[in-house]
C-alpha cells in the first residue's frame, strides 16, 4: 500500500513527535507543579492548579499514546527499556498516580494539612517525573549495556552518572521555565507579578544547566554530534534551538509571553530533535557492544502492522489535532477566580 516508503523511519519520527508533543504539553503542567511551593496563598495555588486543570490529563495522554506507539512499532525497544528500567519506571508510575490524585483531591477538604500534603505530593511528583525522564534519555544517548538476547544487562545504580544527573537537572529547569511562562499567560495581578519574577530565575537556571549539559555531552557523549559533523547543513537544527532559547528572555522582557511560550516550545522540540538525530537509526544504542544496538531495522514490527498503524494515524490524528486545538481555544485567556473546579 505504501510502496517503497521507509515506514520504519516514519514511525521513528512519529514516536519522536508524540514524545515531543508530550514534553511540550505535559512540560508546562509539570512546570506549574514545580512552581507551586513558590506561591504564597492557598488561593494562588488554586489558581495555578486550575490553569492546568482542563488540559493536564489530555497532555498526559500524549505519553500514553507515545508508549503505545513504541509498543506497536518497536516492540523490542518497549520490552527492553521498560523491563530494564524497572525501578525508575515504577517510581515514575507512583509519581504519575500521585499527581493525578493530588490535583483531584486537594480542594475537596478545607484543612491546611490536607491541602499541604496534596500540594507537596503534586510538586515533588512533578520534579521527580522530569528528573526520571532526563535520566532515562541520557542513558539512551550514552548507550545501554545490552545483552545478545536484546535484554538490558545493567543495574539500577548504573543509570546515575554525571551526564544523566545533568540532563535530569536540565529537564527540570526547562520545564520550570516553560511552566512559568504558561503561568504568566494564565494569571493576573500579584500572582502574575510573582510568576514573572520566577520566570526570570527559571530562565537563568535553565541557561546554566543547558551550558553544563553541552559540556558534559561533549565529554561523555561526543558521538551525539557525529551526524552534524558529517552533514554540516544539519547545524541549522542546533542553531534554531539556540535562537529559540535566546528568544525566550527577549520576548518575556517585552511582555509577549505568548511568543515566549512558542519559543520555549520550539526549544523543547529542537532539543528532542537533536536527541533523535543523535541516536538514529538506533533506538537504543548499545555500549560497549554497538553491534547489539536495537535499531529501526532489528527491533521493528512487521511491515503489515506499520501499514495498518499508518492508516490509523492518517485517519485519527487530524481529528485529534482539530479538537485538541478547539478545546485549548475554549480555555484560552486568564483563569477566572469565579469559576474554579479545584
Amino acid at each position: 500500500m505504501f510502496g517503497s516508503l521507509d515506514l520504519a523511519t516514519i514511525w521513528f519520527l512519529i514516536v519522536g513527535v508524540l514524545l515531543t508533543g508530550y514534553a511540550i504539553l505535559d512540560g508546562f503542567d509539570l512546570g506549574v507543579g514545580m512552581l507551586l511551593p513558590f506561591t504564597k496563598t492557598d488561593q494562588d495555588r488554586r489558581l495555578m492548579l486550575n490553569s492546568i486543570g482542563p488540559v493536564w490529563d489530555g497532555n498526559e495522554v500524549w505519553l500514553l499514546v507515545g508508549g503505545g506507539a513504541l509498543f506497536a512499532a518497536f516492540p523490542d525497544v518497549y520490552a527492553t527499556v521498560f523491563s530494564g528500567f524497572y525501578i525508575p519506571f515504577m517510581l515514575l508510575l507512583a509519581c504519575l498516580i500521585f499527581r493525578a490524585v493530588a490535583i483531584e483531591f486537594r480542594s475537596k477538604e478545607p484543612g491546611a494539612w490536607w491541602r499541604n500534603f496534596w500540594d507537596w505530593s503534586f510538586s515533588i511528583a512533578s520534579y521527580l517525573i522530569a528528573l526520571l525522564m532526563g535520566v532515562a534519555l541520557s542513558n539512551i544517548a550514552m548507550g545501554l549495556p545490552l545483552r545478545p538476547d536484546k535484554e538490558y544487562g545493567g543495574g539500577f545504580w548504573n543509570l546515575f552518572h554525571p551526564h544523566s544527573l545533568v540532563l535530569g537537572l536540565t529537564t527540570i529547569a526547562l520545564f520550570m521555565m516553560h511552566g512559568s511562562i504558561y503561568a504568566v499567560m494564565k494569571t493576573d495581578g500579584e500572582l502574575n507579578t510573582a510568576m514573572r519574577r520566577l520566570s526570570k530565575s527559571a530562565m537563568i537556571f535553565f541557561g546554566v544547566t543547558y551550558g553544563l549539559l553541552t559540556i558534559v555531552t561533549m565529554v561523555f557523549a561526543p558521538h551525539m554530534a557525529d551526524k552534524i559533523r558529517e552533514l554540516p547543513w544539519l547545524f541549522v537544527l542546533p542553531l534554531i534551538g539556540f535562537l529559540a532559547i535566546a528568544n525566550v528572555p527577549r520576548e518575556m522582557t517585552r511582555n509577549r509571553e505568548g511568543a515566549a511560550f512558542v519559543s520555549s516550545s520550539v526549544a523543547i522540540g529542537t532539543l528532542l530533535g537533536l536527541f533523535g538525530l543523535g541516536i538514529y537509526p538506533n533506538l537504543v544504542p548499545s555500549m560497549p557492544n554497538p553491534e547489539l544496538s536495537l535499531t529501526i531495522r532489528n527491533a521493528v514490527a512487521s511491515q503489515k502492522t506499520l501499514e495498518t498503524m499508518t492508516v490509523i494515524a492518517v485517519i485519527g490524528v487530524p481529528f485529534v489535532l482539530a479538537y485538541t486545538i478547539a478545546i485549548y481555544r475554549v480555555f484560552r485567556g486568564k483563569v477566572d477566580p469565579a469559576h474554579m473546579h479545584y
Partner: protein
Amino acid sequence: MNVEILARLQFAFTTFFHYIFPPISIGLGLMLVVMEGAWLRTGNEMYKRMAHFWVKVFALVFGIGVASGIVLEFEFGTNWATYSRYVGDIFGSALAAEGVFAFFLESGFLAILVFGWHKVTPKWHFFSTCMVALGSTFSAVWIVVANSWMQTPAGFKIVGEGTTARAEITDFWAMVFNPSTVDRLSHTVVGAWITGAMLVVSVSAYYVLKNRHLDIAKAGLKMGLVFALVSCGLQIWLGHQSAIGVAKNQPSKFAAMEGHYDSDKPIDLTVLGAVDEQNGRVSGLTLPGLGSTLMGGPDVRATGLTDIPARDRPPVQLTFQMYHLMVFLGVALTLLVVVANVLLATGKLWTNRAVLGMLVGAVVVPHVCNQAGWIGAEVGRQPWIVFNLLRTSDALSKVVTAEHVLASLVMFIVLYALLGALFVYLLNKRIQEGPEDATWPENPTLDDPTGSVKEPLLSEAKR
C-alpha cells in the same frame, strides 16, 4: 514466592483496582448523555442540576481511572517483556488505535464536560458529553479486542523459532473480529452499562429514603431502573452467547467453568457447589444435564477435564467459583431490577423502603460480577497467556527479579489502599452534599464552576 506468581498477582491486583473505574465511566457516561439530552429536549432545569451533579462524580472516577490505567500500559513492558516482544505486532496496533481513537477523545472533551459549563453553549456541552461517552466506549473496544485475541488468536502467523518467535499480523480485520471479540465486547460493555445505571439508582434510592433532593432522586431512579432493566435483560442473553462461544473456542476454560470432567456425559448445571478436584466431580446443588439442554439439546457434549492434559488445565476451583458467582449475582440483580420496575410502574416504589434499601446496597453487585467475570475469563485461560500459543510462565521479563516485583507489588498495595479509601470517602462526601437544590443557581459559591447567575447561555436551552 517466584517471579511468575508475584508478577501475576501484581497484574491481577492493579487490574482489579483499575477495573473499578472504567465500567462506571462507560455506564455513567451514557447516563450523562441521557440526562443532558433530557435537559436540552425539555428545557427542564432539574435535568441540568442532575447532570451537573453526576459530572462531578464522573470527574472523580475518571481521574483515578486514568492514573491506574497508565500503570497497566506500562506493566506489559515492565513485567511481561517476553510477552510484549511476542505479541507487540498485534497487541500494539490495538493499543495505538485505543490511544488515537479513545484516550484523546475522552480526556479532551472531559475538559469541556467539567470545566466548560460556563464557557460553551448547552449544545456544545451536550456534544462534548456524547464524545466522552463515545471515547470511553471506544477504549473498551480496543482493549477487549486485544484481550480477546489472547483468548482466541486469529489473523496472524508465527515468525521465528524458540526464544525469538513472535506473532505477526496477516489480516488486521481477522485479528480485530477474532472468534470471541463480539461476544466478549458486548458482554463487557453491557456490564458497564449496568454498573453505571446501578450507581445512579443506588444514590437516587438513598436520597428517596432520606427524603432529600426528591425531584432529582425520583427522576434519576426512573432513568436508572429502566436503563438497568434493558441492560440486565440484554446481558443474560449476551452471557449465554459468551458461554456458547467459550465452549466452542476454549474447551479447557469451559470445562473448568462448569466443573465438567467426563466428555461422554451430559453437562450438568450447578447452581451452588464446589469442585472436588481430586475425584473429578462437583458436589452441591446440581441440575443433571441441564447444561447440555441450555447449550442446544440433551445430546450436546463438551470436552471434559479428564481429556485435557494436566499441564494444559486451568485452576478449576477458582474458575468455577468465579463464573458461578458472576451468574448467581447477575441473576439475583436482574430479579431485583425487575421487581423494582414493577413497583415503579404501579407507583408503589416510593413507599417500599425494603426494596429501596436493597437498591442502595445493590451498587456493589455489578462490580462483584465484573471482577468475578474477569477473574473467570483470565484464570480460565491459564496456563496460557495467549491461548494455546504462549505459556504465562514463558512470558515474563527476563531481567526483572522477584525482589523487584515484590517491592513494586507492596508499593501498589499501599498506594491503592490509600487511594481506594480516599475515593470512597470523597465519593460519600459528594453524595452527602448532593446536587444543588431548585433555588440554585441563585447562591453560587466559589467552588461551583457553574455558579454564574448572569448566565446568558442557560436561556437558550429553554427555547
